[in-house]
């Protein structure tokens, strides 16, 4: 599974539904994520990609779309 597919799988898991968001679709505006599922998603991303996301990076805008999440993860690679 490629990185984007893993991200979508994680979002679907925390949102509790099967999803297929466009890469640039806002996950908040579309209702897929809220304040608490965002927190769950960040925790799941840390586990899946074996990274520690520092508090200073915990800006919701960095995680507002699949593309932004992917860009963030690649910046940490």
């Amino acid at each position, binding site marked *: 599974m490629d990185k984007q597919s893993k991200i979508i799988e994680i979002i679907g898991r925390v949102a509790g539904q099967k999803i297929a968001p466009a890469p640039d679709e806002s996950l908040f505006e579309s209702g897929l994520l809220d304040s608490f599922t965002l927190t769950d998603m960040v925790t799941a991303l840390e586990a899946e990609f074996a990274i520690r996301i520092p508090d200073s990076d915990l800006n*919701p805008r960095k995680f507002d779309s699949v593309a932004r999440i992917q860009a963030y993860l690649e910046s940490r690679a």
Partner: protein
Amino acid sequence: MAWLRALGCYLPSRVVDNAELGPQVGVDPAWLLHATGIEQRRFAAPDETVATMGIRAAKDCLEGAGVSAREVGLVIAASGSGEFRFPGPATAIAAGLGISGTPAIDLPMASAGSLFGIALAASLSRDYGDVLVVASEIMSRVVRIDAANRDTAVLFGDGAGACLVSRDEGLAEIAGSVLASDGEFAEALRLHLDSPLHMDGRTIILQAARKLPRVIGELLERNRIQAADVGVFLLHQANLNLITRVAQALGAPEQRFFRNIARYGNTSSASLLIAATEWWRDGGQESEGPMILAAFGAGLNWGAILANRRKSA
């Protein structure tokens, strides 16, 4: 160390339920309850001020413990919703208690103010004796109640709490504290002088859901206590879901987290002391095990305090 000697609170009499507030902010009352876990909140009367409410809470605290205000060596007042840029309410609270010559300090920190106040009081009690920590907020005057601001309008309520911290005696000994601040997200929760409260809820929840369990865990680890062995967790009543997340992150039974947000909403700095007072008067006196007090708020500021109940003979 120092002791938590007495607790008290004051809630304004006017109850504002979701049936009243929902239409004002353009949402269904049932949705409002589902989304926030808040059934009602209290709003201060027009003639009430942060200081007058603080005085009521302080008197409740002192009178309940049979302590004269003249025994108080220092007043610390926490509020983020004071009526003036300065002075803060501390001196007016002291004057209202008849101890206007007693030093009085303001902590304009909002939600974490009472927790920081207790931690400071625990240290300052060595020099000042009994320290009265008061937290009072009139949040209904710093939010705008309309549809455009409903995310904040529905969350907050008014109230005041108080706690007497003593050098020598009390209901629980303060065993330690961890305080923390992070200015990187200062813009996420702020109150300008001439506009309503601004809150970036996603950032605040995301930061709080990480920082609160971490700081509580750090305090417990320092004191070699397991989360499951804590008798009660008294948290700032910001959000029902947040409290649940903190319990899950710590692996502690959720029923040990006292909750009264459904009745009062988020009363900012006052909420921790209102919760502590209600818990204490509603069976807390019979409880066993360590107490954890914790709060998170604007700044960002957050922290936790460990207090151990006096063991019965």
